[in-house]
């Protein structure tokens, strides 16, 4: 039996009196692009932060390639590359300096110059962080997530704030990563992005999985368009996360994420 890239079972995380994640389970097989979709405050970011070892779960277990990312941080963090929401760099650090610094954190890292080239940042290599555009900052954060040659990459809102061309460029990169056998966990607001990229998707609502499966399965399951021709995953997300349907109905039986692939 192969170890899953990510295995989360019964995860619970509470902030003060609020349950951010309340019994969430999912598993991501090695080599797939897995999407986590859901409204703001549903617990998506908390979930991936637990996978990155940034937070200690209050309950349940998290394993990346069989490793506990909180207890065995150092080992887990050489395997997981993270692109975090709302994380910046020092204003006066240049692009090349930042990437060189992060490369020094990993025993076997990618070549920084080649990575800069791949992300179209070669011309900006001597530009300070403060002077970069939003899209360039985003590309640099992607480069930092990849420089350690991770086996699992977590993108938290990869394309938020990017223009349409830059979004498509990011999608192409994600697909290339998958072609290289790298597992990608994609946290996103955008159903079109998930539909286009993801092998499987989990819809998170109120700290739990409301539904999960292949994008086409979810569209079908939402029952919006039995022929499956016109409805999009976007429609399905709205239907499955805001409808009267209870989570109980949606997560029973084959809807469990376990061995869907």
């Amino acid at each position, binding site marked *: 039996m192969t170890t899953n890239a990510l295995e989360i079972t019964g995860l619970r995380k509470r902030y003060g009196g609020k349950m951010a994640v309340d019994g969430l389970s999912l598993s991501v097989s090695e080599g797939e692009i897995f999407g986590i979709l859901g409204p703001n405050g549903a617990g998506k970011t908390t979930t991936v932060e637990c996978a990155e*070892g940034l937070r200690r779960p209050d309950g349940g277990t998290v394993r990346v390639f069989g490793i506990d990312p909180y207890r065995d941080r150092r080992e887990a963090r050489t395997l997981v590359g*993270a692109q*975090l929401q709302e994380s*910046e760099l020092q204003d006066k650090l240049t692009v090349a300096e930042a990437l060189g610094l*992060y490369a020094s954190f990993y*025993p*076997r890292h*990618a070549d920084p110059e080649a*990575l800069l080239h791949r992300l179209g940042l070669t011309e900006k290599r001597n530009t300070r962080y403060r002077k970069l555009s939003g899209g360039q900052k985003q590309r640099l954060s992607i480069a930092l997530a990849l420089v*350690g040659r991770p086996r699992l990459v977590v993108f938290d809102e990869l394309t938020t704030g990017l223009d349409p061309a830059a979004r498509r460029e990011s999608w192409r990169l994600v697909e290339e990563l998958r072609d290289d056998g790298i597992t990608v966990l994609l946290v996103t607001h955008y159903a079109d992005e998930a539909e286009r990229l993801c092998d499987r998707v989990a819809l998170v609502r109120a700290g739990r999985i409301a539904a999960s499966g292949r994008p086409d399965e979810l569209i079908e399951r939402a029952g919006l368009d039995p022929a499956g021709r016109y409805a999009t995953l976007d429609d399905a997300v709205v239907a499955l996360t805001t409808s009267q349907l209870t989570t109980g109905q949606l997560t029973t039986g084959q809807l469990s994420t376990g061995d869907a692939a």
Partner: protein
Amino acid sequence: MSATVLDPVSARPSARRSAFGALVRTEARLLVREVIPLLWGAGFPMILLGIMGAFSHGPDKSLGGFSLVAAYEPILIAFTMATFALQGLPTVLAGYRERGILRRLNATPVGAGRLLGAQLTVNVAVSLTATIGIVVVGDAAFGVPLPGQLAGFLLTLVLTAGAMLSLGLLVASLARNGRVAGAVGAMLFLPLMFFAGLWTPQATMPAALRRVGDYTPLGAAVSALQHSMSGQWPSAAGLAVLAGYSVVFGLLAWRLFRWE
């Protein structure tokens, strides 16, 4: 298919050691790029030293028998250390936390603890360099003798750095962001420097004020530096005050520091 996205591979045999070195080099580079704090912390005491030296007319009874420049040298050393520890360090660290830089590092195998270590290292290095500069220039240009009790002088420097940096870490722990940390640091800086004797040297302070000052970190530091510079071993009480502040502030900072 062309080569994969993350090729070619570069191997680094001792990643962990070189990671800390790279962090220290990066933080040093960033410190140098912030010209104004550097001028304020290291350049300004030098200028004051020059002014004091120019107006110094040999030993002065009202200054405890020291010349003006000799009386001010320990105060300027305290100034340098307090500036980097109370204004530089907390502003930078609280800003790093506010902007998610610490959190980002915690998602790498290296962890943000090493960035904290790198920040402490560069702040110690720059304040020690400035201190050596003050002592050497004071000797060469203005005839202030080099520290007579060198071991006591060095011990005092270490304890002063410990007390100031742990206070700086405590400020960084409590402040919500870089701006607040800078303001709190500046607010602490003024009274602490008052007891160090920046405005009225300790020898000219009323006895009661001076006694209070002996229990403040920089009052104790300046007094111990003064003693060791004139060849005496600093008082055990003064060193104990410095060590006590280091431990108390250090433990509080350790308990209260948040990474995000």
